[in-house]
């Protein structure tokens, strides 16, 4: 693998203040950017649950320490604040019969008591949200485990025939391949002058593709497709990912593919044949939710997802027994 990598500078040239020597090549710069992006997407910012929690954190922040008594000073400050407030606006909101004489220490107005209940309710909800978030994080992106247990096969001999088919049908626009593996199809498409982009969830594999000149995003196919604008993509090829996703996750993936494709653009699925289930002698398969589907089932799924011209792709791959089903986005 290392032999295929671009050079990284001569060790003898390094100086105490480094960053000198040979600057990173274009491929290395893109690989570094992909590595950064792969980590950035792991930050929880921006999710509804996160913002919800932030709102509650703000409430807790505003209404005092979560654990009363944790700080002697803050207790003292709070006590003086409450005392000072009793003669303020809240006092005027107290029912007249309770307003005089001045309430004793520790006595609260009805409004303060009600606010206390509301704040406690918010805190309870906040704790619930935290718990749900933790559970969500634990179950987040369950398909990744499958990606590691049963790594997607490279397209191998299918790369050439599929590249030819896609190029013959595309109305133009970038062609996306997921899981792209080490980028054989992306490379083949680029060699023929097409704009092609790979998507691969296994960072180390993606890194090899990037370093060989491919444009690759380290992500799950569903994540990447969701980020692409509607009706702009010149073709989508799915392989690998379709062998490990459970059926309930496959359907949204097909819908996403359909959404991003330009009118009349080609869509191809390359999947393991049903017979591969018995042939693949690995206990890891037991843990994988996805199961190979019959060719006819793929055709049905593609039609139900709104594709037209659904048909098996003629096998131009020689000994490779995988099935390939092609379709088109409606014109």
């Amino acid at each position, binding site marked *: 693998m290392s032999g295929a990598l671009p050079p990284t*500078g001569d060790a003898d040239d390094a100086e105490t203040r480094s960053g000198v020597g040979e600057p990173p090549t274009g491929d290395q710069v893109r690989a570094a950017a992909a590595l950064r992006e792969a980590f950035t997407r792991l930050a929880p910012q921006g999710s509804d649950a996160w913002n919800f929690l932030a709102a509650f954190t703000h409430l807790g922040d505003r209404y005092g320490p979560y654990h009363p008594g944790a700080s002697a000073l803050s207790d003292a400050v709070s006590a003086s604040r409450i005392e000072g407030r009793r003669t303020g606006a809240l006092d005027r909101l107290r029912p007249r019969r309770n307003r005089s004489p001045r309430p004793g220490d520790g006595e609260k107005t009805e409004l303060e008591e009600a606010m206390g209940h509301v704040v406690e309710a918010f805190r309870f909800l906040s704790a619930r949200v935290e718990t749900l978030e933790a559970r969500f994080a634990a179950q987040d992106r369950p398909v990744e485990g499958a990606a590691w247990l049963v790594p997607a096969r490279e397209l191998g001999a299918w790369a050439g025939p599929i590249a030819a088919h896609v190029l013959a049908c595309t109305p133009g626009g970038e062609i996306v391949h997921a899981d792209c593996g080490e980028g054989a199809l992306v490379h083949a498409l680029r060699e023929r002058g097409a704009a092609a982009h790979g998507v691969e969830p296994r960072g180390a594999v993606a890194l090899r593709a990037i370093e060989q000149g491919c444009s690759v995003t380290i992500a799950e196919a569903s994540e990447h497709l969701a980020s692409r604008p509607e009706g702009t993509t010149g073709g989508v090829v799915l392989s690998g990912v379709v062998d490990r996703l459970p059926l309930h996750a496959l359907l949204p993936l097909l819908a996403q593919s359909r959404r991003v494709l330009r009118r009349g653009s080609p869509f191809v699925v390359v999947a393991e044949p049903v017979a591969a289930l018995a042939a693949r002698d690995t206990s890891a398969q037991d843990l994988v939710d996805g199961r190979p589907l019959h060719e006819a089932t793929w055709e049905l799924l593609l039609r139900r997802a709104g594709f037209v011209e659904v048909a098996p792709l003629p096998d131009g791959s020689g000994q490779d027994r995988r099935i390939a089903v092609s379709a088109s986005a409606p014109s």
Partner: protein
Amino acid sequence: MSGIHHFVPVLHRGDAVGRHTLRLRDATRARGVDSEIFVDTIDHDTADEAIAVLSYPEMARPGDVVVYQFATASTMAPWLASRSETLVVNYHNVTPPELMAPWDNHLALGQLRAQGDLRLLAPRAALAVADSAYNEAHLADSGFAVTAVVSPSAALDAETTASGNDGRRATRATGRGARWLAVGRVSPNKALESTIAALAVTHAQGNADATLYIIGKPATDSYVNALHRYVAELGLADAVLFAGHASDATVASAYASADVLVVTSEHEGFCVPVVEAMSAGLPVVAFDQGAVPEVLGGSGVLVSDKDPYALAAAITALLTDTSRLDTVVEAERRRLAELNLGSAADRFVDLLLPLARSEASST
């Protein structure tokens, strides 16, 4: 009799600010000046060293100097700002909230409040002391008029730098199986993902024996979880070890057996692990960021391009050049001597005594 008293929200014997505060108190007392440590929250482990802050008004004497150890937001800040004693702020840095916000809003809000506390204290402080020029610039930005720099007095108090590093010699000749080390709180400002990305590059380039040992207490679960997932996605699960919080002995052992300390922090107010590595004879490779270049003072290896390829290349280049390694380690030793950490507490007290005297003479 007036005194020079130290205020800290909570006194932990095991953390850098706690050790520093204890050192300052002892150095103040050694000059024959009354000195106590006042805390907002009592830590049972240091209950015999600290006094509850609410006791201070009864104990206060005209001419007192109060030294506030500033590292986080606390009710202590507005409380001290409202008092009349001569105030000195010892600033240990606040991580910019924007670095924490994508990971932990609660911590980010705390940092935001801390920044507000700092601005609140600025017009009241007779002096503000930072542990680096980098931090001093932050003090000036926050409105402090009189500032000084004194290195942290307790930077090498933890017994984390036991001698004996022959084990690392074996890997130096070939650069294979290099043992990278990262030490410090596992927090977004440390940008450990950059170190991990550089390790991925090193593996991809055929040096699959290189390992990374990360020692430090997690600042927030979301960031640590993301690092774990990143490591898994890059296929480095067998090469990266997260040790979490570790004893001084474990840290000392890690410094002794590692080949290089890697620092890729986005923000560092001082970076104690750098001086610990210097003390242990361990070369440091770091991004040219925050106070790290200042602490290294021309020693170590700085990587100006924040790129995993540049970092990986710098580490490999260093570890495969034995004579350069020796030069770097020797330069680090000289720099450590220059920092003169052993006298830092006395130099700090030197700054405080004139304030106490001038205050005493005016009352």
